[in-house]
């Protein structure tokens, strides 16, 4: 029988995997983030045969594989398809303030977009299907990031 380590001896080896990633947003992403940063607009791309408008803009249709070149400006308003309120961070520790997230279909797009639900906590009444509006940061604060969008605000 092998000699098992006693309580005082090491049983496991601690380590890290050091990894930093640099992601480009891609050709579709360049269209979306450029319009968001410089004009505060939400741009999707249309595939006519598949009757889809993808938001954020994509360079190809996943359904029929066509190259997408027709850009569509999507409205800032839409409806809430689903939501949740998160109480823990990704290490499992309790958040000081719960975070609300919404899955939204903006008018003009066929895809859903995920972002923060603003001014919502567990005391707020949120109804699936309610109207929401995208809140976009002022131009000076926009850098070409998904966080140029503050989140969605429930419109009463």
């Amino acid at each position: 029988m092998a000699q098992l380590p006693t309580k005082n001896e090491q049983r496991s080896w601690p380590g890290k995997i050091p990894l930093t990633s640099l992601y480009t947003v891609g050709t579709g992403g360049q269209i979306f983030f450029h319009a968001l940063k410089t004009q505060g607009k939400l741009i999707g791309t249309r595939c006519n045969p598949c009757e889809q408008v993808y938001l954020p803009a994509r360079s190809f249709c996943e359904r029929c594989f066509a190259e997408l070149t027709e850009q569509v400006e999507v409205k800032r308003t839409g409806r809430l398809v689903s939501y949740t309120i998160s109480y823990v961070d990704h290490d499992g520790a309790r958040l000081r303030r719960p975070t609300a997230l919404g899955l939204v279909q903006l008018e003009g797009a066929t895809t859903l977009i995920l972002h923060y639900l603003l001014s919502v906590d567990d005391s707020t009444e949120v109804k699936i299907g309610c109207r929401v509006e995208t809140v976009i940061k002022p131009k000076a604060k926009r850098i070409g990031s998904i966080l140029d969008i503050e989140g969605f605000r429930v419109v009463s």
Partner: protein
Amino acid sequence: MKSEPEPNLVRGTPLHEKPLRQGKTFTITYTPKLRYEWDMGQAIGRYLAELKEGRLIARACRKCERVMIPPRMFCERCFRPTDEWVYLKDTGKIFTFSLCYVSWNVKRLKQPEVPAVIEIDGASPGMGILHVVKRIAPKKVRIGMAVQAVWKPKPERIGSVTDIAYWEPIKK
């Protein structure tokens, strides 16, 4: 049926440093927290505990008659548990080596590191471990050279392969 892609049909947009630095190309940088506690298992647990004591240990399989280092609780050839612990010497022979001028974090080194696979005396032929060789002019390192482990002083040993600081040629 079309033929091979002509040069202008091969697509892909090379990205150069300038648009990246100028912020014209949007990017996101992310460093995930990847921290681990790897369970050592019985074989490596004992291997490291013995290194702390200044000893090299192997496992033997009676069926294929191999004495194996690093030790393992099952023989990967016979697919059965290995049979016994075997202490080895802390000497060996260089099986292969390199002179590396680039560090682990991609920095240029003036003096090369000499990584080597060292066949340990007492184990089966060809049974080697990865380690580093020092105290020899890089140009003089040879396959087959006899080497000796140089241990860290006992208080500095923690139960790691680095409890052997390096290997050096055996002085005749």
